[in-house]
């Protein structure tokens, strides 16, 4: 099956007073129609910068974007802004973490949804408003005819995120980028929104890029996972591969450090030492090496050479960027990581 989205060697850098900061460094991934890719990382990992690049939203800023972003074979990155604009909200759209901040406080929810529909469809305002009501109904807003004239602050947190989704899907986009869509929500509402996204994906065959720091949310929604650290992808594979047989020490750390509802609660969590690096001073070699417990098994390469992103064994679709020998990695995983998962 051909890939609907293909990102090749994407890099995004920002000029700052401290020099050029590489927020995203040589990122490549692909996404099929109707599938979900979870991009997982902590603050500063470059996951949000990546999502904005796919929508071409760095155009017109000081950011330098190189590489290819192919949607249906068209390269977004080399396309001029006035052409990308016509794809935004239409072929590809985005929902954001904080729906209260992401919706205009002075316009009604209906107005904002209708506006998104009107830019890309030659219809009357009345038709656009009907579309807004229809979308609100579809995302599960009760009494949509009445609520369409409400302002964002009159909606509850969960309803606002639903309204954002309604707005993003109003033009039936083929690609939806969801940037931490449930992080600001309560857990029972988060579950509703995850269900809603899953249902809508099935219905419209939308491809979704889900940006999150929450492994649980990815596990419940994504097909593939891309793990990012300090602007680089360090592990890439199916959800099962990455969450059940993670290969990168950072992935191990993440999985063993998150508290879960199962397992022995009296055992201390296996935390990752140190803090995520600042992009202004990314450690040399493997960016994770100052926090990695297995540097001694490799030696100086960790701090001097950037490991390549390679299949864990030939032909595998599970890629990892680590200097550890695959047999050593296998061994560490089986003896030290798996027992505490």
């Amino acid at each position: 099956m051909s890939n609907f989205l293909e990102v090749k060697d994407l890099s995004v850098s920002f000029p700052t007073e401290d020099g050029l900061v590489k927020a995203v460094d040589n990122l490549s991934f692909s996404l099929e129609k109707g599938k979900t890719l979870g991009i997982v990382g902590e603050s500063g990992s470059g996951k949000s910068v990546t999502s904005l690049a796919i929508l071409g939203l760095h155009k017109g800023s000081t950011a330098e974007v190189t590489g290819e972003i192919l949607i249906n074979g068209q390269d977004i990155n080399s396309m001029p802004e006035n052409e990308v604009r016509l794809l935004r909200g239409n072929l590809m759209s985005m929902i954001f973490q904080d729906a209260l901040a992401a919706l205009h406080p002075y316009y009604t929810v209906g107005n904002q949804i209708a506006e998104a529909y009107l830019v890309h469809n030659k219809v009357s305002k009345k038709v656009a408003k009907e579309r807004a009501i229809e979308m609100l109904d579809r995302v599960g807003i009760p009494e949509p005819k009445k609520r369409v004239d409400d302002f964002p602050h009159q909606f509850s947190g969960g309803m606002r995120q639903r309204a954002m989704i309604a707005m993003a899907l109003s033009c039936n986009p083929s690609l939806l980028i969801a940037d931490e869509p449930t992080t600001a929500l309560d857990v029972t509402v988060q579950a509703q929104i995850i269900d809603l996204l899953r249902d809508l994906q099935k219905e419209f065959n939308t491809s979704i890029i889900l940006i999150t720091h929450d492994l649980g949310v990815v596990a419940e929604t994504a097909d593939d996972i891309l793990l990012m650290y300090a602007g680089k992808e360090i592990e890439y594979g199916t959800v099962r591969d990455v969450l059940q047989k993670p290969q990168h020490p950072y992935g191990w750390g993440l999985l063993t450090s998150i508290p879960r509802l199962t397992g022995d609660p009296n055992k201390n969590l296996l935390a990752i030492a140190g803090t995520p690096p600042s992009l202004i001073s990314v450690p040399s070699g493997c960016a994770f090496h100052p926090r990695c417990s297995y540097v001694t098994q490799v030696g100086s390469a960790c701090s001097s050479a950037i490991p390549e992103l390679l299949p864990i064994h030939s032909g595998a679709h599970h890629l990892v960027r680590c200097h550890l020998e695959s047999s050593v990695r296998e061994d560490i995983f089986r003896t030290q990581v798996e027992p505490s998962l």
Partner: protein
Amino acid sequence: MFSYLIRRVVSGVVVLGIVSAIVFGIFFILPADPARLSCGKTCSEELIVKIRHTLELDQTLPVQYGRFIKGIFVGRTYLGGTEAELNCSAPCLGYSFQTDQPVTALLKDRLPATASIAFGASILWLLIGLSSGIVSALRRGTWVDKMSQGVALGAASLQIYFVGLVLQFIFVNKLAWLPTPGYSSPFQYPLDWAKQMALPWITLAFLLSAIYSRLTRAGMIEIMGEDYVRTARAKGLSNRTINLKHTLRGAITPIVTVFGLDLGGLLGGAVITEYVFNIPGLGKLSTDAVSNLDLPVIIGTVMFSAFFIIIANILVDLLYAVLDPKVRIQ
């Protein structure tokens, strides 16, 4: 919302009362004697006593104040010196010591000139200030931005009496493109009115548009960083829609606030402008009244400008509710 409006009106009336009491009190304790001032050249002790009685200056302060307030609401009767009683119907602010005209008539007379300056200039400065501010914000860091903000900074630090006189020297005295500023009725002589008002408008607009330009630029730049502007871009809207419908709309509230207060303040008398260009408006009326210690006129003009400022405040708050649904719905 309605009860809010009532609360605001009531508190406005209370403020007006306080203002009037303070102005009244200040003039009472001043060392100057209004009776002597209005007495003229052929003055005798006898006459002063009589005038003092006529002007009711021989009453206690509370009595004078009480009658003053009564005059505003129901009108009052003056002894009127030797002649018959003078009936001053509500709203009565008394009679000028200098010209014996009713203060309300004076105010009514002078308001059109001031209003002409205020409205004309405000349209001009809004147009210039907003558009240059928007352009600056959108072209941040370019030479257009630097130049317009440089001019704005320079203009904001100049003074009316300097700019006004320089412009008058150039356009009236040297080039003779414009007549000497003054006031004629816009309904009878619209062209003369516009020509005479041009310099006051330009002068005021020059200085105030600088402030509005900076305010607009700062507001626009702040809103451009808001999440909802990013959402507007993600929807694929055109730059024009993003800038005007989303960004400017988000930034407009503080500008409207400042504008309302500026306009309200100006309507109470564009004191310096009127003085510089010698225009018979409320500002000129009040400066003249102060130099002549014309007590009723001073009180009248102060209360009139306080009235405009309070009205402007209430209107700004109502406008806030129109602009911000969060305020409206609460």
